[in-house]
């Protein structure tokens, strides 16, 4: 009965999501990630349920916990009212808290992700924001998307959005007081601390890998090794 498990068991998502797994596999059967990654949610739940700290540690450092898309399809099917998806979320949170995320390629994606998302939320009050959604990073935005970006003000205005304007409406400028409240919430509830952990650990890891922070972040955003995919394909 290890320490890592004890920490996990404090997490409400484990309390909610892991009652007693019977390894029936209904979760894996319909898991979008299990089909395309070397991934099996049932196994992860089994490991956590085993309370084997060594195995949990290995999980926290591995790519495996980062494959889930958090669609929560598994929740619907479980005959024991477990939520494998929530178990994953809890594992990820712990991996960040303890800084193990930098040990895996997929975990290292935290840096670009957090820069983008925390940045958007704190600066604009939105998770996604057209001005920070770069076509270069998102070629699938398509030729229409490229056009939309090129004519951003015209298009949004015509479609009734209030991009950057005061008052209610889509994409409005959120009042500074509200943004300040978000920042206060971030500070109090640990989001700011997470950003600090991620930046610090990433910096250490980048140094270890002999990369500048820019290279490290760019690599994390674009690099994918074949080891994530199933061997038979």
């Amino acid at each position, binding site marked *: 009965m290890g320490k890592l498990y004890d920490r996990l068991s404090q997490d409400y998502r484990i309390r909610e999501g892991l009652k007693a797994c019977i390894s029936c596999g209904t979760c894996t059967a319909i898991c979008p990630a*299990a*089909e*395309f*990654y*070397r991934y099996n949610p049932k196994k992860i739940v089994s490991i956590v349920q085993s309370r084997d700290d060594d195995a949990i540690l290995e999980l926290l450092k591995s790519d495996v916990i980062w494959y889930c898309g958090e669609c929560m399809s598994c929740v619907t099917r479980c005959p024991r009212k477990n939520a494998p998806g929530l178990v994953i979320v809890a594992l990820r949170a712990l991996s960040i808290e303890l800084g193990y995320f930098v040990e895996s390629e997929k975990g290292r994606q935290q840096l670009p992700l957090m820069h983008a998302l925390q940045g958007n939320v704190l600066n604009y009050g939105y998770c996604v924001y057209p001005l920070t959604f770069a076509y270069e990073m998102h*070629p*699938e935005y398509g030729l229409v998307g490229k056009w939309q970006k090129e004519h951003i003000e015209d298009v949004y205005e015509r479609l009734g959005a209030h991009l950057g304007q005061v008052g209610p409406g889509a994409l409005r400028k959120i009042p500074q007081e509200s943004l300040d409240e978000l920042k206060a919430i971030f500070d109090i509830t640990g989001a700011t601390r997470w950003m600090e952990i991620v930046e610090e650990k990433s910096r250490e890891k980048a140094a270890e890998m002999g990369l500048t922070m820019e290279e490290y972040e760019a690599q994390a955003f*674009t690099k*994918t090794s074949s080891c994530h*995919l*199933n*061997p*038979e*394909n």
Partner: protein
Amino acid sequence: MIDFGYGLTPSSTLKIEDVRLPAFGELLRREPDAAKCIACGSCAASCSAGVFTEMNLRRVILSLQRGREKETLPLLRHCMLCGKCQLVCPRGVNTRHLILSIGKVYQLEEDKR
């Protein structure tokens, strides 16, 4: 064709109805015990080679039944045929002959070329 920097990933789902198993049928003809496995894992647990390697007869049998032998056949290369699995098998499967028969029915990918 445009390179988007990512692409389609093949599915790993076992599409069991697509699996035609003529080889497994031939194996059953040679060693009918192949149908008797109940996947209890005794063989893997007692395996002499399993102490040193990933050798796991239960997994091999299953992969043959699922048409996915490619992944597990190489494991058989580690088998020393000591026969402990045969002694512990609760269904009395003639594991040694099963392994020898697999060697005659199936072939390693790398050796096909």
